[in-house]
């Protein structure tokens, strides 16, 4: 096996069921409920991932706590030597469950928050009292002795409270805080005009996050995911298609990135029919945008092509209709104005109720 082309991370989307309705959910907008992988199928997938070189697994969803076999899967992953992270809303976490997860070898729990403030958080998540229950979940994580990290998705309605969000995460005892500007795919794309912050907001937030990162170094790791609509160069999405990461969705389809499901015309293979090794190495989907050979200009002749890998295929597909185009975030893309115009558009002040909230499968 060529060590330069092994995956490091597997995102295991155990289920798309979730009690929340966040209007920026990264789950597919169009999803016909299919039979979820069962425990044995997941165990086999995790073991194959380890053989392929994966070192880290994120248990995600939907809400992964809705799967009763989560503890078993964590244990299998730990026995295979993987670093295990639970990516959760915190809803459904009890002391017993947390203790069992710790015993199974869980390395980290990442709890999502919608805001630092109760009322706004519950309105964004579309569920009364969710914020209070999340607070309770973080207490449980700390009490049983699991490592806690926080994730907050940023948008026009909460980005001005960034200082409060950072202080909130410190108070909760988080060792890591991921401040993720909304990425506009799927549900978030539907709600883009209401979610997108202004340039002034984005610049103020970047300063606050930068200061916090230095001030809190060693106590709480602060990560700030840049809002790429306000950038001139694309992000090195997934570190290149089929280079470092794979995602397995609830019915076993293997994707180079979690949002690739929504690229029109792509066909993906499932672990029910093929081994993970075959899919990683041989499948048409993983090879489609691997390397730099597939690139059209301006990427093909660009000195940055090994740095940003042409940006995000999902974004190119969504905004230009063709996944093999240069990511329109790039200033050299002939479609760059699509991004620029969305970023500089007049603020849409419709009330929160008019969001297109994520519906559950």
């Amino acid at each position, binding site marked *: 096996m060529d060590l330069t082309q092994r995956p490091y991370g597997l995102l295991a989307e155990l289920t798309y069921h979730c009690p929340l309705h966040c209007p920026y959910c990264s789950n597919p907008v169009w999803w016909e409920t299919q039979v979820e992988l069962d425990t044995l199928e997941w165990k086999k997938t995790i073991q194959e991932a380890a053989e392929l070189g994966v*070192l*880290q697994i994120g248990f995600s969803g939907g809400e992964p706590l809705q799967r009763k076999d989560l503890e078993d899967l964590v244990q299998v992953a730990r026995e295979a030597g993987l*670093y295990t992270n639970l990516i959760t809303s915190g809803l459904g976490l009890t002391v017993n469950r947390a203790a069992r997860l710790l015993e199974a070898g869980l*390395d980290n729990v*990442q709890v999502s928050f919608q805001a630092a403030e109760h009322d706004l958080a519950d309105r964004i998540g579309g569920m009364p009292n969710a914020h209070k229950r999340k607070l309770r979940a973080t207490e449980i994580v700390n009490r049983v002795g699991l490592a806690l*990290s926080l994730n907050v998705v940023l948008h026009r309605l909460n980005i001005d409270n960034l200082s409060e969000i950072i202080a909130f995460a410190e108070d909760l005892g988080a060792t*890591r805080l991921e401040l993720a500007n909304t990425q506009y795919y799927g549900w978030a794309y539907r709600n883009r005009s209401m979610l997108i912050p202004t340039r002034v907001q984005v610049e103020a937030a970047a300063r606050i996050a930068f200061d916090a990162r230095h001030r809190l*170094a060693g*106590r709480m*790791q602060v990560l700030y995911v840049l809002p790429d609509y306000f950038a001139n160069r694309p992000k090195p999405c997934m570190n290149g298609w089929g280079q470092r990461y794979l995602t397995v969705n609830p019915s076993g389809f293997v994707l180079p990135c979690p949002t690739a499901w929504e690229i029109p015309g792509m066909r993906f293979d499932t672990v029910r029919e093929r081994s993970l090794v075959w899919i990683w190495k041989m499948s048409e989907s993983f090879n489609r945008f691997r390397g730099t050979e597939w690139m059209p200009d301006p990427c093909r002749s660009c000195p940055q092509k090994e740095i940003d890998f042409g940006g995000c295929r999902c974004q190119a597909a969504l905004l230009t209709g063709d996944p093999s185009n240069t990511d329109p975030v790039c200033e050299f893309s002939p479609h760059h104005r699509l991004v620029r115009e969305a970023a500089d558009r007049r603020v849409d002040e419709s009330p929160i109720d008019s969001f297109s909230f994520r519906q559950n499968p």
Partner: protein
Amino acid sequence: MPDLSDGPTRSFNRPCLAKRARLQIDPLSGNPVLLSQEAVILLNRTGYEILERCDGTRDLAEIIEGLGTRYSIAKTTLTQEVSQYLEKLSQRGLLQWI
């Protein structure tokens, strides 16, 4: 698991890997790695030998003592390099002092 509670035994001079970090041998390459959420740090042999000793029971001098017999460089240089290395990991929240 070392006692992390504040108490008379706590002097903040013994490094210990943070709860969210894990030291491991990569089964594919046989090389040591330090794992944490969404990060894989590839270690060299020396890095591994240092971190292996960061279990909250030894202070810096004891860690150096343990390494000393294997490295032929001067003790002051070794101390300086090890403490810089540990400081870097502390800043990333992967190591704590208890």
